[in-house]
């Protein structure tokens, strides 16, 4: 957009939103001398506006049709709106009245429906099992006061706030209609507290400036929420009460409380979530002790004495004794010795191994460990297919980092000492680089106009209008809108997120190449072997083993490579901790899921699960609703008895399997690869921008009704049992992503299935079931015979 455009000499009938803001700005100006003049203009404006709204609503209701109650609501809204706006021109009362709401300027309150709150009682969300209202007398007083939710474009929506030990819940007082979609809803903010990254107080009561007074919530998924809180006077402690309570329940760990997962007692049809992964069974499936006796189970770590971040059962070469393992552990960072992750067999039952470990503790003095060298040599010798080759060590780090690690006692294997090994550096950056990269993606958020609050859901803020009084605000909007949006591609490039995704995928592809094409065993490590290592082993296993591409297999993979091998979820996600600046936080697991998503985009048929599973996993990783991702390793989870005291995410997932299944899945034996050229990688907008609501949902109107219905039914089922993260069905598609496409297909398949099933939905809706139909047939045949 050209900045000159704003200064054009073309003030004209501004768009609706601007009319409102203009109107408000004028009221806000509260210049008594001008009141008379203003009264005329604003009156005219509102009338136009109202007429316009009426037209819009007529359109909306025409589509609604079947929900008459909403129609009447609309009308009353409109009447009240008209009354109020006309009365507002008479005196200066409006300003006073509006000012009692919050400190934020009235100009920023949305006036699309100004009618008074109809219900002043508390609003309480549908609570899930174990969820309790946080009830202190002060707070329940507050819930009857107005809180204003501030939209990204600095307009406000007033409503009520409610806090439980699990979520922050806000509901607007009024319906906001999405005219294009023909629906109207309360604006609801339903935020599980586990997602809260950081809470800040903003603004001062004493400040005369046009500041918000309230709290600012940063979320771990990039969402930013601002609530303006009304305060009548300086003694008003409402904000402190809200802030303290929020802080207490959002950061249980910092406040000596337990995670919500320990209170959550929902029962599921399938409660085997904690038994999805059985270490022995899984390794036996791979072939350990069943197809080969070269490897054995070792219980040396049974009580976590060898390594407290490793699982209890380790798989090591059969020829190595437990005593030796203890000595090798001394030479590996955090005692994470090389252990088996996966085996590939050829036709003659020869095998190639994928191993993982942490870095060797070489240090500056280039220490050696004969035990470690021997150990790797033995592993190399186990590869009988390609015994002439080498054992390939994939060091995930960039070379420079690997060298730099020597100063802190780490390092990498040198090819001089490890005779039959070749070391490769995969040039994947560390957790800090990834964290900053993702932050840049989240910063790319747009101040989009929310679908509920505007009659013009997709309109960017700067329109044809330019008005001197709202000029500053327009400019602010313009800056936000144009800079963010105009530089979208530049920001995407600068975030380097897709380059990082590319390097991780390339790393995994390299591992696959060595194992699959060259039949060489591979050892993967990075520094501690719990971040990049886990990414590489699990991705390459997905590519090579079709089992991990099934729903169950994927659960097993996460349990095995991430949870049991000690990816530090607690620290990386910062579960329950208020220390938002902690340098150990990083979205490594999210990056892995993103990589899986990229694979899925390019090979849509080979995965049994769908995108929804990925989003569900990532979302629940933060919420602490399930015990699965709590704490940092098996040792800690055992200590807090997570298995017995919390519900597993997989219990939920497995209970509603159909929700998470890919309708076009076809079992595929081969290796799944993907192109990593920049033009084939995509930004996962359906996750990263899930709250931006950029795409107009009016296209949802397009959906054939019955499909929409079945989708809704399916959704409501999920909502009953689990906190639903409100995943948008349609998300913006960047560079050819086809999520919507797939959504359509699976919906269609669902209808086809439901029609085809013996107890057809369609027949059910005809009040009688098919079995009864057969009975009638028999009866009528009988009649005929008589």
């Amino acid at each position, binding site marked *: *957009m*050209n900045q*000159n*455009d704003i200064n*054009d000499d073309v003030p*004209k*009938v501004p768009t609706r939103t601007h009319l409102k803001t203009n109107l408000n700005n004028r009221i806000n100006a509260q210049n008594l001398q001008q009141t008379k003049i203003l009264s005329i203009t604003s009156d005219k404006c509102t009338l136009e506006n109202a007429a*316009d709204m009426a*037209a819009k609503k007529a359109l909306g209701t025409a589509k609604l049709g079947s929900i008459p109650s909403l129609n009447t609501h609309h009308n009353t809204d409109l009447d009240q709106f008209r009354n109020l706006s006309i009365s507002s021109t008479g005196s200066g009362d409006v300003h006073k009245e509006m000012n009692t709401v919050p400190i934020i300027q009235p100009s920023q309150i949305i006036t699309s429906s100004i009618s008074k709150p109809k219900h002043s009682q508390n609003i309480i969300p549908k609570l899930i099992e174990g969820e309790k209202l946080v009830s202190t007398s002060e707070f329940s007083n507050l819930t009857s006061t107005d809180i204003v939710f501030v939209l990204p474009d600095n307009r406000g929506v007033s409503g009520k706030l409610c806090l439980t030990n699990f979520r922050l819940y806000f509901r607007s007082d009024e319906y906001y209609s999405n005219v*294009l979609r023909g629906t109207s809803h309360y604006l609801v903010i339903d935020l599980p507290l586990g997602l809260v990254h950081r809470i800040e107080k903003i603004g001062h009561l004493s400040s005369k400036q046009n500041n918000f007074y309230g709290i600012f919530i940063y979320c771990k998924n990039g969402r930013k929420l601002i609530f303006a809180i009304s305060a009548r006077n300086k003694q008003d402690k409402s904000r402190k009460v809200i802030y303290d309570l929020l802080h207490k329940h959002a950061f249980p760990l910092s406040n000596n409380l337990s995670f919500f997962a320990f209170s959550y007692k929902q029962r599921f049809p399938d409660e085997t979530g904690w038994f999805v992964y059985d270490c022995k069974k899984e390794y036996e499936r791979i072939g350990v002790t069943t197809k080969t006796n070269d490897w054995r189970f070792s219980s040396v770590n049974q009580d976590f004495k060898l390594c407290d971040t490793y699982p209890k059962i380790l798989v090591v070469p059969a020829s190595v004794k437990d005593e030796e393992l203890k000595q090798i552990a001394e030479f590996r960072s955090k005692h994470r010795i090389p252990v088996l992750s996966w085996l590939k067999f050829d036709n003659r039952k020869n095998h190639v191994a994928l191993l993982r470990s942490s870095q060797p503790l070489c240090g500056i003095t280039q220490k050696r460990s004969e035990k470690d060298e021997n150990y790797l040599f033995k592993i190399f010798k186990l590869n009988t297919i390609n015994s002439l080759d080498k054992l390939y060590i994939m060091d995930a780090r960039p070379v420079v980092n690997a060298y730099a690690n020597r100063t802190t006692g780490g390092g990498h294997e040198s090819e001089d000492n490890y005779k039959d090994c070749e070391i490769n550096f995969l040039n994947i950056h560390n957790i800090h680089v990834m964290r900053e990269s993702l932050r840049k993606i989240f910063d*790319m958020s747009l101040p989009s106009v929310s679908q509920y609050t505007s009659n013009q859901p*997709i*309109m960017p803020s700067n329109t044809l209008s330019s008005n001197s009084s709202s000029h500053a605000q327009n400019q602010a909007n313009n800056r936000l809108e144009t800079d963010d*949006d*105009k530089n*979208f*591609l*530049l920001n995407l*490039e600068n975030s380097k997120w897709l380059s990082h995704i590319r390097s991780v995928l390339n790393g995994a592809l390299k591992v696959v190449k060595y194992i699959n094409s060259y039949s060489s065993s591979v050892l993967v490590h990075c520094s501690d072997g719990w971040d990049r290592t886990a990414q590489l082993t699990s991705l390459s296993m997905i590519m090579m083993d079709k089992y991990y591409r099934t729903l169950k297999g994927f659960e097993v993979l996460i349990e095995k490579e991430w949870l049991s091998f000690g990816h530090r979820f607690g620290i990386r996600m910062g579960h329950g901790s208020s220390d938002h600046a902690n340098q150990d936080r990083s979205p490594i697991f999210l990056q892995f899921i993103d990589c899986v998503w990229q694979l899925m985009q*390019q*090979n*849509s*048929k080979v995965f049994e699960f769908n995108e929804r599973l990925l989003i569900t996993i990532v979302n629940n990783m933060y919420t602490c609703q399930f015990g699965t991702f709590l704490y940092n390793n098996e040792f800690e989870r055992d200590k807090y008895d997570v298995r017995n005291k919390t519900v597993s995410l997989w219990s939920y997932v497995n209970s509603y399997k159909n929700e998470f299944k890919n309708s*076009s899945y076809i079992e595929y034996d081969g290796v799944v690869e993907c*192109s990593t050229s*920049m*033009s084939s990688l995509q930004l996962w907008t359906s996750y990263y*921008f899930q709250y*931006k609501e*950029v*795409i*107009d949902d*009016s*296209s949802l109107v*397009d*959906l*054939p009704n019955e499909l929409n219905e079945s989708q809704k039914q399916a959704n409501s089922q999920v909502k009953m049992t689990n906190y639903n993260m409100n995943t948008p069905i349609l998300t*913006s*598609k960047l*560079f*050819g*992503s*086809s999520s*919507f496409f797939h959504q*359509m*297909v699976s919906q*269609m398949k669902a*209808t*086809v299935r439901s*029609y085809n099933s013996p107890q057809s939905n369609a*027949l059910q809706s*005809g*009040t*009688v079931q*098919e079995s009864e*139909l057969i009975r*009638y047939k028999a*009866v*009528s045949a009988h*009649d005929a015979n008589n």
Partner: protein
Amino acid sequence: MDFMDLIEMPRVDNVKVYRQIQNYELNQLVTQKLFGSLNLTSHHLIFITQTDLQKPREEIWIVHSSIDSLEKNVTEAKFQLMIKCKNFQIYFVDFPTAYCCNSIHKSLESLSNLTTENMKLPFFCQTISKINQEDWNFYSIEKSYKRFFPNEDSSEWRISEINNDFKISPSYPKKVIVPKNIDDQALIKSSQFRSMGRFPILSYYHKKTNSFILRSGQPLLGSSNKRCKEDELILKCALPKGKQGYVYDLRDASILKTAVSKGGGYETEVNYPLWKRINKHMDRFDQLHISYSKLIDACINSSTQFFYKLDTSAWFYNIRQALYLSFLIADEIHNKNGCFLIHGWDGLDNTLLISSLAQILLDPESRTLDGFIDLIEKEWLHAGHPFSKRYFKSAFGTTPQKQEGPVFVLFLDCVRQLCEQFCLSFEFNEDFLIMLFDNLYTSEYGTFLGNNQNEREQLLVSSRTVSLWTYVKNEENIKKFINPLYKINDDVIWPSIFTQSLSLWSNLFLRFQINSKPNDEAKKEIVKLVETNLQVKIKVEKLRNELLELQKEAIDAGVLNSENY
């Protein structure tokens, strides 16, 4: 001049050709190496692989006019010709000797740059199917008029035949729609005042709100500040009471002075008091051509800084701007009471882009296959978009005249963005748009020949060539272009225009880089699903009826208690 004069060497043997193709078994792109002979005919470069017992013979046909640029790379050891095609395919041809490389290069250079319209391919392709006059007359202004004004008597508009001999405005069609109470004399006066004689004519009439879009060329004020009473009258008469008129000038306000000094200008407020002027910048066709070249370059060399390159190409900026401006018009027309006159410089390029996009948003009819063809005929072919000039070269080439500008490609991309956002509201599919793109640059059909209706008539296009619509309407072909998910949507569509909602047209711009197999399969899958869905529904309906009848029968016979049902 005869073709044979241009062909020195009709056949060269022992030639190697390299190209990138999809390998469906490996599911990836591979570079294919072929060995054989090259044959030069009047319109085609034909490469035939050597007969081999193992492999079937392969042929590659390259139409001369599809060659965008040729690069000769002759060293001591290598005699290579790189052929870049207008559809982004690139071939490398290794010749056995420098002489034949030079000779073929010379011939191709002249054959691919033929400017004589009469020598173009469509005139030699009458046999592909029968010339069908109906398809040439598929669009008529009477049809549009009838659609806009079902009741002719009450309409304020009429069809004028003032341009019947293309004298008033060579780039306009014979018949145009103008305000009823403006006589032809005023139109002539107005045409003298407008660039290229393009006086304001009706482009679209929105029945629901009685608002409209007019388009024209820029007014020729000049430095002497001329005015034209008749032109002012047209705009004054066109605007009904209670409507606000906007002159949508697709040039930045800062260059208006330059325009005036060059003899052009803008509608002044004094002379057009009822109309407000809005200046919105759109890149001109020559800038767009640069943008397009950069975009294709980014797509071909996508290894480093891909998004940075995409950004600097400004292609997305252009899509966004085009959608944004048409969005504003649609909003104003549908939701408020604005009426528009759109023009840029001559009203040949961006004017047509914006007016046709606005119509797609506003008019459900234009989202059907027939309606879309109508729109192309009305807003592009009949409106005088210079197809011959603009699409003489594609992303790799230019001519010294610099008349190239892929405005229509931008239009197709914008439409595709809309198709993607509203994937049920369009009757045609992406393949249809890609087919249009392919026929835009080089075609066996005559539709996109010439720069305007006048030229097409002189070339006798309609009696000497086959219309592209004949090909489209063929029963076999039409199936390929129909969107199986289409469902009539009578509403105005409001797209999202943020850059992050836009996507790269990978099936076109990356057509030789990405694997299109999954996409093709998905498409087939959808067609299949839609069919089963339909059949199942019919079955259910049948069963339901049967059930009801049986129920009734049972109740009548007293076997069932009617109260229970």
